[in-house]
């Protein structure tokens, strides 16, 4: 706690010190117009790169059209201040907000279709949209066509008659906006919404399976980034007073991307430092201005070759400190020292004793002509442990994918707690009560064990992105609640002391456990475990068997598990389904399955099976 307070004071102090220094320099004449102009450029660049970092760093999607949003903000804002018959001190802030909103609207409009794509394709389509925005602006008459707009009020002179006073007001205004935007990106990043966005970067499929509506959060990240870029555009328009569409082309987007990359993707402070250095350095080294861009591009290549994660990577101590500082800053600002702690769980399920919690009716899927699964009838009673076995390629994981909505079934029905869930999205099914683990572990590797679990609480929390930004009472009480619950869960698995360890650096067995832990955090009624013992040694497997038995009672879940380790399957399953060639070939108690000739045939081949049958007879 003391360390935190120290870091808050440090951060606030350095911000204030910097601010007062600039003000003092301006009044004493030590700050030329040229220098103060550079300061404004730095602030605008900070906003642009920090917001781009929301999509590229936090969400992990490369966007190549960020300058397009800046253009929208710049034009809307400039047109508003030119036409509105208001005092500049009033019309300018309104115009910035309008510019931001217009850009956010564009972000949303573009995002809805574009975010169906990923990776390279998303990068290309954002490039396309960015260029289209530019071309459209060049061809409209409101925007002045290719010539652009000129005579936009310059903010450096507009606030007051006295040039020094006006310059100070300009700096105060721009600096304040920048600080506010950076602070809200930080606080948002720490909220459940930020966690949801980062979990998509880490592993989109796992995020969806832990109950994160990934499309919604991609769109949210995209829209927020566009909003801030729009505001930066408005500032830019009133800094230069002349704008045209060429200023916001592909090269501009790339320039910002370069800064984000150099600073470190996912590190907001990295973006800030890189913006400051890369904008001011060339100005200082004006003598070498010819070589500027050559050096700049060489730096980019060398950085990628020798330190590809950028200056700061995704995490760095100073960043954590700054982060915590902002949090405390806001907590103080709003004086919301709520001591309330709201627990995330409410009992959601009726008593299902003696009734099936999960049933499927002739479920099946065909990929083209290949029927990967057909006529699957499964039934899972409350609190039951059921095994799903079968040779490789029998369709076991396909059944899991059908149950969780990763694949849409082409035939049949899935009924969970008496309600059909066919055709729902994975995250909705997770929220309805099915959680799963994966055959090849899918953790959010660069998040800590604790954070991994917290992501899964997402759908059990209610505070909005705005209260996440403000860190108000509701946000804090819910966060405190899930912190307690998440640690409790870790305790069940004896992993309390690993809470702050990155999931990716945990030993293999612990990673498997953490995945089960995360699945339980979404409060499921049915837990699907895909080869939980894979890669475990015999003693670890025995331990796992114990754990599975414990969680069945403690969390009152029905468990369906895929496993090749027959000792585990025979040891804990009450019933077993056997799958081969996409069909259920046998079901029954472990004893029945062990002596079933068809099962033996599937595993050992027919001749051997006949021999075995003869022995049994």
């Amino acid at each position, binding site marked *: 706690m003391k360390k935190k307070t120290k870091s808050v004071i440090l951060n606030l102090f350095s911000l204030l010190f910097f601010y007062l220094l600039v003000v003092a320099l301006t009044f004493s004449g030590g700050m030329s117009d040229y220098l103060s102009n550079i300061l404004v450029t730095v602030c605008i660049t900070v906003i642009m790169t920090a917001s781009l970092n929301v999509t590229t760093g936090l969400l992990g999607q490369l966007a190549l059209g960020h300058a397009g949003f800046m253009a929208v903000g710049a034009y809307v804002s400039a047109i508003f201040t030119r036409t509105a018959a208001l005092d500049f001190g009033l019309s300018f802030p309104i115009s910035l907000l309008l510019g931001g909103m217009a850009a956010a609207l564009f972000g949303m409009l573009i995002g809805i279709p574009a975010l169906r*794509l990923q990776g390279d394709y998303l990068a290309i389509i954002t490039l396309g949209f960015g260029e289209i925005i530019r*071309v459209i602006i060049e061809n409209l008459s409101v925007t002045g066509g290719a010539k652009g707009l000129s005579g936009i009020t310059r903010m450096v002179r507009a606030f007051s008659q006295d040039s020094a006073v006006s310059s100070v007001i300009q700096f105060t205004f721009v600096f304040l906006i920048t600080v506010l935007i950076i602070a809200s990106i930080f606080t948002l990043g720490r909220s459940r919404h930020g966690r949801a966005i980062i979990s998509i970067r880490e592993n989109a499929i796992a995020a969806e399976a832990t109950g994160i509506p990934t499309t919604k959060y991609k769109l949210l990240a995209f829209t927020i980034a566009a909003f801030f870029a729009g505001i930066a555009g408005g500032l830019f328009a009133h800094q230069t007073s002349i704008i045209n569409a060429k200023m916001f082309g592909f090269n501009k987007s*790339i320039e910002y991307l370069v800064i984000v990359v150099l600073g470190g993707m996912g590190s907001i402070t990295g973006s800030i430092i890189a913006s400051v250095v890369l904008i001011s350095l060339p100005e200082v080294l004006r003598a070498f201005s010819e070589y500027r861009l050559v050096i700049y591009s060489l730096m980019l*290549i060398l950085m990628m*070759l020798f330190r590809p994660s950028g200056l700061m990577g995704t995490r760095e101590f100073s960043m954590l400190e700054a982060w915590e500082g902002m949090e405390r800053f806001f907590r103080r600002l709003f004086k919301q020292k709520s001591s309330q702690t709201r627990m995330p769980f409410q009992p959601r399920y009726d008593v299902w004793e003696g009734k099936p919690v999960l049933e499927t009716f002739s479920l099946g899927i065909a990929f083209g002509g290949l029927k990967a699964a057909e006529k699957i009838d499964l039934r899972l009673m409350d609190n039951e442990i059921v095994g799903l076995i079968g040779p490789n390629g029998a369709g076991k994981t396909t059944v899991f994918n059908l149950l969780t909505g990763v694949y849409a079934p082409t035939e049949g029905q899935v009924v969970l707690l008496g309600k059909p869930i066919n055709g729902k999205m994975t995250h909705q099914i997770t929220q309805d009560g099915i959680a799963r683990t*994966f055959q090849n572990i899918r953790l959010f590797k660069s998040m800590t064990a604790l954070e991994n679990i917290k992501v899964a609480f997402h759908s059990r929390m209610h505070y909005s992105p705005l209260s996440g930004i403000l860190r108000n009472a509701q946000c804090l009480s819910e966060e405190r609640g899930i912190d307690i619950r998440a640690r409790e869960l870790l305790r069940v698995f004896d992993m309390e002391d690993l809470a702050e360890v990155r999931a990716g650096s945990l030993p293999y067995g612990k990673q498997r456990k953490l995945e089960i832990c995360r699945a339980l955090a979404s409060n499921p009624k049915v837990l699907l475990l895909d080869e939980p013992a894979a890669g475990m040694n015999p003693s670890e497997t025995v331990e796992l068997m114990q754990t599975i038995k414990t969680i069945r009672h403690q969390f009152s879940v029905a468990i369906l598990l895929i496993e090749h380790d027959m000792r585990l399957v025979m040891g804990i399953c009450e019933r077993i389904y056997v799958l081969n060639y996409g069909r259920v070939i046998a079901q029954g108690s472990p004893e029945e399955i062990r002596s079933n000739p068809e099962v033996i045939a599937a595993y050992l081949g027919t001749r051997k099976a006949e021999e075995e049958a003869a022995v049994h007879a």
Partner: protein
Amino acid sequence: MNLFLNQLINGLHVGSIYALIALGYTMVYGIVKLINFAHGDILMIGAYTAVVTITSLGFSAPLAMLATVLCCVVFGIVIERVAYKPLRSSPRISSLITAIGVSMLLQNLALLIFGAQSRPFPTLHRIPPIRFQGLQVSFITLLTIAVSLALMAGLTLFVKAGKAGKAMRAVSEDYNTAQLMGINVNTTITLTFAIGCALAGIGSFLYCMAYPAVSPTMGSLPGLKAFISAVLGGIGIIPGAILGGFVMGIAESLTKAYISTQMSDAVVYGILIIVLLVKPTGLLGRASREKV
């Protein structure tokens, strides 16, 4: 009708240049999954080589073309070895950003050496345009289309039939397995870059004959359009790049003729977006899903 046919021929002319450049993008993407942003600037390097060899060194046109191709190939190989090879196993975003860096570096080096002013490309022939029933086709158009088609046919044969082509296909299918089969992956990747850059070199020469102005940033726009062509046809697929190039060229010249010159870029990007939304893997691409 004549206007339409003339525009169609113009479209084929531009389209075949786009296709030649798009082949470089698509081959590189197919084999190392990298969008080589510097490929457009290879075009610019080719153009400067041609101008310098013809005007300063007095080379004849065929000799200058050979020099252009050689220079492009050398640049391509050096870029691959120095900038891309060390990053082969790092995240794709790193190599993509490096490619952007290489592109910036080439443009700014050219700016430093040759200056911002654009240089005229010398006229190389005096053959009059061919007239036929009101149609008018210039010699350059015919030459461009013929050379491009021949090169595309040659490349398709090379990739389909030859030993090196088979190695290229194997590496693009599965890098690691190809290694286990005794294929020298490094040589194969270098060869891919070399072929891509050779095509860009020829494309650059043909491009300059049609648009005779050489400047440091001249590669950006045709590069971008060629890249879009590659995506349009399905990036990584060789026939896709050819198809994409022609579709792009024709769409562009028809928009210029019938809608407006300024909007032609918007139409180009519009096509890209529609294709990506309807069929993200491009016209000839096949979808693949991540295994869960």
